């Protein structure tokens, strides 16, 4: 019998990435700076984690020109939402003490 923890998504499992996913899961899309301020991390750290999540196909990054400024929008892909929901489900099952 394998413990449920093996079903946890290693990409989402980091506390910062979990917080990023939770933030984006509550929104259709959010600006990079909003996520940075909400999760309380630096630009570089957020970029690093976003790259990881983007490579996993969980986050979509879009850049748009707004006057002289470039705004970066982040959103979860449908795969990202499904992975986050599954991750939460497994965590809750572990919390409930059930095993696969």
């Amino acid at each position, binding site marked *: 019998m394998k413990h449920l923890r093996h079903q946890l998504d290693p990409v989402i*499992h980091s506390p910062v990435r979990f917080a990023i996913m*939770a933030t984006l899961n509550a*929104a259709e899309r959010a*600006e990079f700076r909003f996520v940075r301020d*909400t999760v309380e991390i630096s630009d570089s750290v957020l970029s690093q984690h976003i790259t990881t999540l983007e*490579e996993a196909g969980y986050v979509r990054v879009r850049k748009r020109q707004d006057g002289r400024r470039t705004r970066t929008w982040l959103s979860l892909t449908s795969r990202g939402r499904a992975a986050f929901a599954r991750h939460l489900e497994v*965590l809750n099952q572990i919390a409930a003490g059930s095993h696969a």
Partner: protein
Amino acid sequence: MGGVAVSLTITYACGMLNQFSSTDRHRNPQPVRSERPLTPDDVERLERGVTRAGRWFAGYLALIGLVSAAWLTVIETTFAEGIARWLAVSAWPIFVVVVSHVAERQAVHPRGATRALAVATAIWFAAYLFAVGPFLRGTYGQQVLPWVIGSLLMSLPFFVAAARYLWRR
């Protein structure tokens, strides 16, 4: 909310062990030292922050509903005929461009925002073209009061969607 809170506690409890697992080391050659344990309070703060930041969308929908009602009333009563009507009609795309620009300046678009706006607009437009619009035009002509009431009724989808976003937790 409770489930997420429990989840996060576990995320930290058993997750920190996996934080620098081989997968993470591969993805993050230099682990982020600033990562700190998340608490249920953090999760609530995150969710509250995102919800609060998305509240503008309720006002945005309500504004579109009110302006739509006013615009329909004007083009069907005051400027019902001639070139004035077409000038008034052309104000609508300008309004759409302006409000779209305002929307793009917001930091957060709440979940389902695009769909909510599209559904409300589709219902409003269909009602104007096929149901309420022809009925009011045929029955009351250019009388202002029926058009005010009818236009507000047609804007109900915007108001209902706005209420949902306003009271969303």
